[in-house]
């Protein structure tokens, strides 16, 4: 990418937002994007382990469907990724909100694409608020995949949606502990 303007000077470590600050901004970004895209957040959950909890917490027999996760990386003075994980009902809630389709059949590819765009919006919002004012950062394109049973982890950003659930995680490169 060509730019005639000089890039911002590399920030010192104390200029970078802390993990906690980034997680707070991530939570704000989720809520703002969902409000703008008419996706209902029924409640914040203390913790959620998608997709495991969807079966264990008595959310009903796991219906036919695929639990999804989407990752959007960011890089610059700080590198990492935002990962959203949904059970299949949560992914459908998100797709219906973005596409404004309260009823009707959704194709699996439509759901995946909508989830990717949702993650794109959330990561972009977080980046604009917390990272762009400090230094030059760039974002990757969303990668949507089936939620991994092996790599599931506790997340403190967890949301109950209209029919399903979603967790939002922030991964920072070279960080010993997962942020959220």
């Amino acid at each position: 990418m060509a730019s005639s303007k000089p890039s911002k000077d590399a920030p010192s470590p104390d200029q970078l937002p802390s993990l906690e600050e980034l997680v707070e901004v991530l939570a704000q970004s989720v809520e703002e994007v969902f409000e703008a895209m008419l996706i209902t957040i029924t409640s914040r959950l203390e913790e959620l382990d998608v997709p495991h909890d969807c079966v264990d917490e008595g959310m009903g027999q796991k219906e036919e469907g695929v639990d999804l996760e989407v990752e959007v990386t960011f890089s610059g003075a700080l590198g990492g990724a935002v990962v959203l994980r949904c059970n299949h009902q949560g992914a459908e809630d998100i797709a219906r909100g973005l596409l404004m389709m309260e009823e009707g059949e959704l194709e699996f590819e439509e759901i995946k694409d909508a989830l990717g765009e949702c993650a794109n919006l959330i990561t972009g919002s977080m980046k604009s608020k917390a990272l762009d004012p400090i230094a030059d950062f760039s974002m990757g394109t969303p990668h949507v995949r089936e939620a991994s049973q092996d790599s599931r982890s506790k997340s403190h950003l967890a949301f109950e949606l209209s029919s399903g659930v979603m967790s939002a995680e922030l991964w920072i490169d070279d960080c010993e502990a997962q942020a959220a």
Partner: protein
Amino acid sequence: MNKILIVDDSSTMRKIIMRVLRQAGFKIDNIVEAANGVEGLKTLGENPDVALVLSDINMPQMDGIAFVKAVRTEHDKETLPMIMISTESGSSMVESAMESGANGYVSKPFTPDSIRDVLGTYLG
């Protein structure tokens, strides 16, 4: 006749843009779509009556910045209004897009009002 070219790798976002344009009250007689800059150039060639382009910045194969440059230079369309749509408002990528010849940008997520404000200059 206001024909608009929407260039975005997300089919979801293309649908959202179409919906918002109609909600904003624009008379869109015809909308054509492309999933990246390469397809955008091809679609532009096939539709010389496009009156305005809405393009994402972060796309595979050819990003929005390269797309704007190509439209301005290779396709010799210096006066075609090109508006960038991006999550990256205020970032260096938006600055680069403007320097490459874009006329303006709209931040995602956007509302009918924000679209109306930017596009009102170019479309009736």
